[in-house]
């Protein structure tokens, strides 16, 4: 899957989980930029992403992401 397609799919998952229809994600987006994205919703997002992409992240991977770009790279490395 192309990296842009991964980002688009990630954005779709974020919109569904956080219930923000017009949310636009870029590689640089961080949790500070999205009000609904906090430590709790983060774990819900992880579960939804694992389901959507059919993958499993390690704890270290999840805790090392600084922004959406890191997350997309991590997914790209697994599919």
């Amino acid at each position, binding site marked *: 899957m192309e990296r842009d397609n991964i980002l688009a799919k990630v954005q779709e998952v974020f919109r569904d989980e956080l219930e923000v229809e017009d949310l636009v994600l870029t590689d640089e987006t961080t949790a500070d930029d999205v009000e609904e994205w906090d*430590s*709790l919703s983060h*774990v*819900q997002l992880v*579960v939804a992403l694992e389901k959507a992409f059919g993958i499993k992240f390690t*704890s*270290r991977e999840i*805790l090392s992401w600084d922004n959406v770009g890191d997350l997309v790279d991590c997914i790209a490395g697994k599919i």
Partner: protein
Amino acid sequence: MVVNSLAFLWFFLVVLVVYYLLAPKKVLQNFFLLVCSYWFYAQVDLKMTGLLALLTLIFWGIGHGIRIAIEQEKEQLASRLTTLSVVIGIGALFYFKYLNFFIGSFVAAADLIGLHLSWTASHIIVPIGLSFFTFKLMSYPLDIYHGKINHERNIFNFVNFIAFFPTILSGPIDRPKPFLKQLAQSRLFNPDNLMTGFRRVLWGMFMKMCIADRLDLYISAVWNNFEHHSAVSILFASLLYPFQMYADFSGYSEMAIGVSLMLGFKVAENFKRPFFTINIAQYWSRWHMSLTSWLTDYVFMPLNIKLRDWGTNGTIAAIMLNMTFIGMWHGADWTFFLFGIYHGLWYIPLMVSGQFFKKTKIQLNSYGLPTAPFAWRMAGNYLIVTFGLMLFHSTNINEFWAVLCRIPEAWNGGLFFDMPTLVNGAICSLALIYVDFQEEYFSKKKIYLPAWTERWRWELTVTVEILAILLFGIFDNNQFIYFQF
């Protein structure tokens, strides 16, 4: 040396002058800061200065090891070193803070089943600030392992981060990344930082000396002799206690943040008007924020991630463990354990009802204040916090139980009214409540003040604060409640 003492004032004045004379040479500034921090800690706890230095060296060494392991792609070694650092940190806390508690509890439990053990508690002195600097130490290897920071090659910078004198005794618990970044730059003389920092120090002194210490006179008088006081007095003192705690610890934090700012450092904030909250989750996101965010990042998040396949039950388990840690962090007694469990239990209805996962926005009326239903929920939340802090205030479970039992027994008595204490306390508390309301609900609106006051605002505020401290303050170098932790 207490932060609001004359001794600290002289110490800090000398530090400030020399510190800015050394600017812009950051190496000299940092070295001077390091010497001052260790000198300060030695004044407070000379015997434990060596331990502080030793633990700092160990954690820096482990950080170095993790960096090498990551560079050489030895994942298992990096993971083991990180675990080792956590074991050392928790081990130090356990030995100094909790060993006697566990020995005592074990002996008591064995006694119940007829096993009489002759183990006696050892005489262990808890190093001052241990709970604060151990958390700072542990975040360092964890952040390197998770790729949040690079290893700090300059050991003096790391030592400076851990021992930074404005925050070593009672926080705020700073993180390595923002602090080490600031150490890498020279701090030039900046009048804005000095003025803002000085105002925050004064405001902190006001909160501590005029409110917390004043209310303490009343609360201690009632609580320490609760057998002789009526239910009304006990309940009134209990209701005042959260506010005293807030004025005490937030006051200390203001001073620590202000002193840091005067030295050119922005450290973590610790309080954000915690009583304007409608549930316990909101309350903990605004109370002792540097501790709760530390535990969120290093305890709750990893646990919640590990247990994510359990859904809401996993989150409940992570929260309960996290809140138990928060409780026990405060001290080695069953009261603190129950304090943590009590708060954890209040999260369950929030999680089950889904409120925890969705942020409830507080609705405001036409005056810009919370609508009645939200105001009631805030009052209810204050009561929940009050009950938890009654547990926190008790020296042991028996005392807590005795106080609770006293309440229904003593309904007939009137309110113990210590006029000067309550009147002085009320005047100063109203000032704090006004400022908090202003910041929470009206910060975007400009208050009308005559034009000339704009130019002299800093001078006027500082003068009023100094006069208020001199008029209403209690000058007996009362310890901060959080120093014991």
